[in-house]
């Protein structure tokens, strides 16, 4: 019974546990609840991926209604991979969360915090699992609303403004997506994605469908913080509690990318999206702008959280670059990049959370000579930084390698050049961290500052280890990504 209902349970388990978590009065109990659920979600994600790898796309009719009358859960390789990313980050961040949350939040807020975390997890998973365009919107709302709350729980008063700015932008994005879905429904009479894909070609020369495409594209671009719609992202990451920065940086924008892939390739189809609407050209230029400005701005930041936030803007650019190529290799590179970047950024933000716990600040000038006091945390930042640059034997190298290869395959050598040149920009900002923490003498004594607790170090290093592992042996990941990309683009496997 459990296995046959796996697709539903993947979302229902965190959904049901959210209200239960609210009812648990003690902060410790709420944490234990969130921890258990996160690991259960990971187990289910692995089982689901296995099922998809063995049997192909899995479909699950909710309420046992046939599609397109009822809502369908539909998990292909791409969905299974993105679910795995979310689940890994969720499972790793929860053991880490206890100490960090205890320090950064008041006791009375902790129950609501874990409830919102579970709701956010539910929303993100629900977006990925569903095969229904309106259901996607509903779960998008769950994840957005809960992330606004999570961000606003930050200790700094500016967290409220950051959350409000995100709320306004996010609501515009969600409304645009809803308008687009509404127009698609008007022209086809269906909400099921597979059914939409079948019925849209008949009406895709109408102005209504073109406008629908434009609205969903812009709406999703806000959600995934594609340049120039990224302005909500830096403040949201900086002022949020550390655990929220980790979780959102590693998962939320990735789910946005997933929705973009789903819309371009599954719902509207490659031909309409890229040949008729030329969306590839548009997002390619935006992605290039994102890569360059994000990296450049990151260099000049003195707050490490802000530096990493702008770096995220650039990294999203790389991912979108792969998608913009619209080839099997390009999309596969995008998916690999998405997976690896979640691991890298998760690890880096985790290390920053450790510094936040001990130092209460992540300003560069406060970190001088930190290597002596927090060697493992600083080492994690350096390892993550190397992966971010794309040094061989790290996951970052694999993603950039595939991206450059895809660009060259498409004959776009200037694009390959931009990827390499912007990696040099990454070297500069990563070096600034290394210089400050390793080579500068500590200006003033920091008595009592010691290494982050084991409960926070272990999860950080677990992600770093995954990074290094993928850097050495990426065959499984690239194989799965190729399968996913081939299914999306409609090419035979190479």
């Amino acid at each position: 019974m459990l296995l046959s209902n796996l697709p539903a349970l993947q979302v229902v388990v965190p959904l049901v546990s959210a209200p239960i978590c609210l009812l648990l009065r003690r902060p410790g109990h709420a944490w234990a609840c969130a921890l258990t659920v996160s690991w259960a979600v990971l187990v289910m994600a692995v089982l689901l991926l296995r099922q998809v790898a063995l049997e192909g796309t899995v479909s699950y009719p909710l309420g046992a209604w046939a599609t397109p009358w009822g809502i369908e859960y539909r998990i292909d390789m791409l969905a299974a991979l993105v679910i795995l990313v979310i689940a890994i980050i969720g499972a790793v961040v929860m053991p880490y969360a206890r100490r960090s949350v205890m320090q950064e939040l008041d006791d009375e807020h902790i129950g609501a915090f874990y409830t919102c975390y579970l709701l956010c997890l539910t929303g993100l998973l629900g977006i990925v699992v569903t095969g229904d365009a309106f259901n996607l919107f509903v779960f998008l709302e769950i994840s957005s609303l809960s992330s606004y709350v999570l961000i606003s729980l930050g200790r700094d008063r500016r967290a409220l403004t950051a959350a409000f700015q995100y709320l306004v932008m996010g609501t515009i994005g969600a409304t645009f997506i809803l308008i687009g879905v509404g127009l698609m429904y008007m022209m086809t009479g269906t909400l099921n994605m597979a059914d939409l894909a079948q019925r849209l070609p008949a009406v895709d020369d109408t102005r209504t469908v073109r406008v629908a495409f434009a609205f969903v594209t812009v709406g999703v671009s806000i959600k995934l913080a594609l340049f120039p719609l990224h302005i909500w992202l830096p403040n949201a990451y900086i002022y949020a509690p550390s655990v929220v920065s980790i979780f959102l940086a590693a998962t939320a924008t990735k789910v946005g990318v997933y929705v973009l892939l789903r819309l371009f390739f599954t719902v509207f189809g490659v031909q309409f999206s890229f040949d008729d609407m030329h969306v590839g050209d548009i997002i390619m230029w935006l992605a290039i702008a994102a890569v360059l400005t994000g990296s450049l701005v990151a260099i000049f930041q003195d707050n490490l959280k802000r530096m990493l936030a702008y770096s995220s803007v650039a990294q999203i650019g790389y991912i979108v670059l792969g998608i913009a190529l619209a080839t099997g290799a390009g999309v596969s590179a995008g998916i690999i990049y998405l997976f690896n970047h979640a691991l890298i950024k998760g690890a880096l933000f985790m290390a920053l959370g450790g510094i936040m716990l001990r130092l209460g600040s992540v300003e560069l000038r406060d970190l001088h000579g930190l290597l002596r006091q927090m060697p493992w945390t600083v080492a994690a930042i350096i390892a993550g930084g190397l992966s971010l640059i794309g040094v061989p034997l790290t996951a970052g190298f694999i993603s950039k390698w595939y991206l450059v290869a895809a660009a060259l395959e498409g004959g776009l050598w200037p694009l390959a050049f931009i990827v390499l040149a912007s990696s040099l920009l990454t070297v500069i900002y990563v070096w600034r961290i290394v210089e400050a923490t390793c080579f500068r003498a500590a200006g003033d004594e920091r008595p009592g500052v010691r290494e982050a607790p084991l409960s926070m170090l272990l999860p950080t290093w677990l992600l770093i280890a995954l990074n290094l592992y993928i850097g050495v042996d990426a065959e499984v990941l690239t194989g799965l990504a190729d399968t996913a990309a081939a299914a999306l683009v409609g090419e035979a496997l190479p």
Partner: protein
Amino acid sequence: MQHLVDIVLLGLLMITGFAIVRMRSLLAVTMLTSIYSLFSALLFVVLDAVDVALTEAAIGAGISTILLLATVALTTEYEKVPSHRSLLPLLVVTLTGAALIYGTLDMPHYGDPNAPVHRHVAPDYIEDTPEEIGVPNVVTSVLASYRGYDTLGEVTVIFTAGVGVLALLGVHLRKRTEQPSDYHKLVVLRVIAKLFFPLILLFALYVLFHGDYGPGGGFQAGVIFATGFVLYALTHGLGNAERVIPPALLGILAAAGVLLYSAVGIEGMLLGGKFLEYNVLADDPVSGQHLGILLIETGVGITVAAVILIIYFGFVSRRPGGADAQDPS
């Protein structure tokens, strides 16, 4: 004739919209948004979408007006005049509007029976509902059964909003025995409110349990139910309302509604069906559907009512004046 009504209503909507943009008094704007919702509700009635009309009237014209008034009472009555005129927002809005108008050019004609929405899934909903679900209100059968999972998602959205308000504002009602400042002037209002209070709750229950047959359902019922308590709090003071329904209970109720809904879904799986499959809940599929719909609608009603009261109490308990603070007079 119907077109005339449509045009007049749409014209009024437009005038109200412009007035909202131009006005600086937030109190007036709040009342205008309420009027805007009322016109929309009327438009939905003309379109024969009575379920939507009921929702729009209860939420848009009713409860959100009260919440906005509470917000205005907490903040300020006049919008600040912006120091500079920014062209970017104007550009964005104009572009969006132009795109929307451009999109209308190839839409199916208004009321066209051959439009795709009337030809694909909708006819089957209408034809199959009597034998598959067995309830006369097709809207309820779609929302609660065919697309019941969306409704679970929506309830979760509302629950999330409630948790958000609990986390950010909290519902900390101090033990308050004092009454609204003009308590004694409000005799007529209080007597009428007292008369209406049980009737409103009764009507909410009617909307809830009659949702299978007529317009309504858990969502509208929850709003109406909460309105009763809001009216009571407005006329009798927060302290008394708090004694009727303790704030600590509200969080539990909000969670309980979502749990009831999901429990129905899980029960479907335990009985060997899919998640949210009601057919397996009873001996024959149609009674199973009836039972399932009744239970999930109740869950929706509980969560919606509790969350609205959480938001309302969360807002008004932040001001020493209490409930009378948002009295528009």
